């Protein structure tokens, strides 16, 4: 809406108001992060008395030492890495192959194959039958309980399908004439041309598996199998339990909790925050691609 017309007074007022609103949005979005970092580096006494806000008070990193010296924390962090790699790998293979099949417009039965996937976006079995299924398949306490039930996200599938459809058909036809079979075409021609979308898919899946907690919470019975999200969940849920009975909130243990919780939150957020600037644009382009063409 760029114009050469001289801005009116009303418009100039709008620009100012707009700037104020957007600044507000930025501040409100960032504030919880700043606050949690400040709390994680503050002295207990200041936190308890409600004095920690934007800056740490009674600066110290003791709580970081506490959390990082807990072997279970690292163990669970390692689990998160392991689960994310396995689940992303499985998801990538299944999503790529199915999206490729669905992108072939001439294929007989294609409408049905698409419908099989899309219907599940709007209707699903629900928590209980899924729980019974995973339990009965004997997947509990293994990485497969996390990887298999979430192996294909239909939204991601449609994004990838849209991308494959946009590739020029001539290339694949030429490759087929040269004697490559379907698998060869997919592996040697299509995938090398699809690095951008594959990277996007890796990120979509990896971030969602990295962040997930409920499957693990449901299907992992032992602490040493938890991902770090469940570690954090148990830390914060434990504390609400304590707060609920009121009096305990004043006890020493609850006081230690306040910084420990903040530190754990900071340490689990850190990897995402570190790579966020680099991955953000892939997400945006992926979402837009899925929406425009899906």
């Amino acid at each position: 809406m760029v114009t050469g017309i001289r801005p009116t007074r009303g418009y100039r007022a709008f620009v100012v108001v707009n700037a104020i609103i957007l600044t507000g949005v930025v501040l409100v979005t960032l504030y919880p992060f700043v606050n949690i970092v400040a709390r994680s580096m503050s002295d207990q006494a200041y936190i308890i008395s409600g004095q920690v806000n934007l800056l740490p008070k009674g600066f110290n990193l003791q709580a970081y030492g506490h959390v990082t010296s807990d072997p279970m924390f690292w163990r669970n962090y390692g689990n998160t890495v392991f689960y994310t790699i396995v689940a992303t790998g499985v998801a990538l293979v299944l999503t790529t192959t199915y999206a490729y099949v669905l992108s072939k417009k001439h294929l007989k039965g294609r409408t049905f194959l698409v419908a099989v996937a899309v219907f599940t976006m709007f209707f699903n079995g629900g928590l209980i039958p899924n729980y019974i299924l995973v339990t009965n398949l004997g997947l509990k306490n293994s990485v497969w309980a996390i990887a298999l039930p979430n192996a294909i996200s239909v939204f991601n599938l449609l994004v990838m399908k849209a991308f494959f459809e946009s590739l020029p058909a001539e290339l694949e036809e030429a490759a087929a004439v040269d004697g490559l079979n379907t698998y060869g075409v997919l592996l040697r021609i299509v995938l090398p041309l699809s690095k951008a979308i594959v990277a996007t898919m890796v990120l979509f899946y990896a971030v969602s598996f990295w962040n997930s907690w409920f499957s693990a919470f449901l299907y992992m019975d032992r602490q040493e199998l938890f991902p770090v999200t469940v570690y954090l969940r148990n830390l914060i849920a434990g504390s609400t339990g304590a707060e609920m009975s009121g009096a305990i909130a004043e006890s020493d243990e609850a006081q230690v909790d306040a910084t420990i919780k903040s530190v754990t939150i900071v340490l689990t957020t850190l990897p995402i925050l570190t790579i966020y600037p680099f991955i953000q644009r892939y997400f945006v382009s992926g979402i837009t691609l899925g929406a425009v063409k899906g």
Partner: protein
Amino acid sequence: MSAPRILDPPPTTFADPPLPPAGRTVRKGRRSWRRAIRKDWQLYSLAILPLLFFVIFRYLPMIGNVIAFRRFRPGGGIFGEYWVGLRYVKMFLGDPTFWSVFNNTLILGGLTLLVCFPLPIVLALLLNEVRTRSLKRFVQSVSYLPHFLSIVIVAGMIMQMLSIDGVINQLVSAVGGEPSAFLQRPEWFRAIYVSSEAWQTVGWGTILYLAALTTIDQDLYEAARIDGASRWRQTWHVTLPGIRPTMVTLLILNIGTFMAVGFEKILLIYNPLTYETADVISTYVYRVGIVSGNLSYAAAIGLFESIIGLTLVLSANLISRRTVGTSLW
């Protein structure tokens, strides 16, 4: 997101053969299938594993819902032991807790839709007016950030901010109020839920609108200006109609997820003191089924929820197709 058609006529093999000249059509259909398989068997083979996934982990659980009408014994088969008819359905219809969580689901879902659906549109329009590229990109990047956080982290932040020593209570004390444990007070739960939901989703929600905004023909603005339209009127008559299909599509999708209101987040931030307003169908299903082990009863309630969800999205889609001509398929 305009998803492929699922209501189209199904492919030949799955359609009922037309009656009178049946023999011929069927034979012809079979022959062309044989040809298709001979030609494309490698493609079909690639679909086998993904199809297995859908059958086992998506469609089997749908069928698994029969346990809502059957007696289920833990450790037994996944489809239960014997039929009990509508026993569990009658049971939840007569269960006062069910109606309370049903109410809570509608209220929370409604409030979320009311707040979290329009806000991204407003933010996208505001961002669209920013002339300085780098500034716009900075605001966008910051506002997308919460989307990338695990819900557990968000819950942790909510708890820290609302705790007795947290920032919200610091504000309350600063204006002379009495600090209070907001997460333990049912009257605050809805506000907490909806505002944290807005915090997490508003920025990310602008992406599709911003993309739609770039596709609006600039000549339309030029024409509107020549007709003497103010900026406000340009927004009203050019911009909003330009992003209407996106708005309608997202509205339908939002309505589809209406019944499944933020299950994971509620599970993380509610507690027995706030069940009165915080407990929704999905969390109730979790507690009844997984925690207390009444799997059949919980499945009956869960099935009810899924059916309402499907009905909502289908009717929203139908209404939208009839009225504004936009639909998902």
